[in-house]
């Protein structure tokens, strides 16, 4: 038997896990978002290559600015958070005592890389207008 759940969504969201909890939630959102995007993207590119119109229509959605920023958020957060998890898991005794501080380092890195990527997307879109 699987687990039974007695906690509502609103109670769950008020859980005071702070940064590690939000990192965990965003890691899942990013991973699920990427899995969904890559599945649709590969099928639509395949359709496009076969000359089916639906493929080109779906692929055009990906070039819109809001979508690119969303998928960049998914990819970059998941990649940077995943690297933190991997490093912490490989050196648990040395690094686990500092796991909260390490999340702040990770967030600073993420804001830097994601900010640069988002600016690049917007600048490219403005340049093509």
């Amino acid at each position: 038997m699987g687990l039974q759940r007695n906690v509502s969504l609103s109670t769950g969201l008020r859980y005071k896990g702070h940064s590690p909890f939000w990192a965990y939630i965003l890691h899942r959102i990013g991973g699920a978002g990427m899995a969904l995007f890559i599945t649709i993207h590969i099928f639509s590119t395949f359709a496009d290559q076969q000359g089916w119109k639906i493929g080109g229509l779906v692929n055009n959605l990906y070039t819109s600015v809001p979508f690119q920023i969303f998928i960049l958020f998914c990819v970059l957060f998941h990649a940077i958070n995943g690297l933190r998890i991997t490093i912490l898991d490989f050196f648990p005794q040395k690094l686990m005592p500092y796991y909260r501080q390490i999340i702040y380092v990770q967030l600073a890195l993420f804001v830097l890389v994601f900010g640069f990527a988002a600016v690049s997307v917007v600048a490219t879109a403005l340049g093509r207008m």
Partner: protein
Amino acid sequence: MSHLKSRKLSLAKRGLSFEMFMWAFTRVTALAMYGFILLGVIGALIMGAQHHLTFVEVLRWALITNPGHVESTNLPEIAPWVSSFWRLIASGMLLTAGSHGVHGVIVILDDYLPKDNQRNWNRYLNMGIFALVALAGLYIIWTA
């Protein structure tokens, strides 16, 4: 922080369960994907990305080194970007990311599926979709 200390049992004594294997697999594939991305970025810089691609176009290329990912850019010569080497790297990334991802999706959905038969279907469906995605992806990479 004594409660954070890990147990000092050797792998042989602990035994390698499926969960333990997938735990290691997720982390090793994450590092492998960083390797693929780094290779893609270095390759792009060697092939002249700094003059013809934007930062996001380099990222898109590095994530999957597929010819289609540089078709709509300002590159004057696409030939070096379309080689068996880059198709091989793209295939490696597709299968690594796909297997990492399908495991992740199954783990996430398991949290919302309490019944055993739901969890079985979760595995069959997602692994089936992954097989189709892998085939379509490899077809795109090698025929584009």
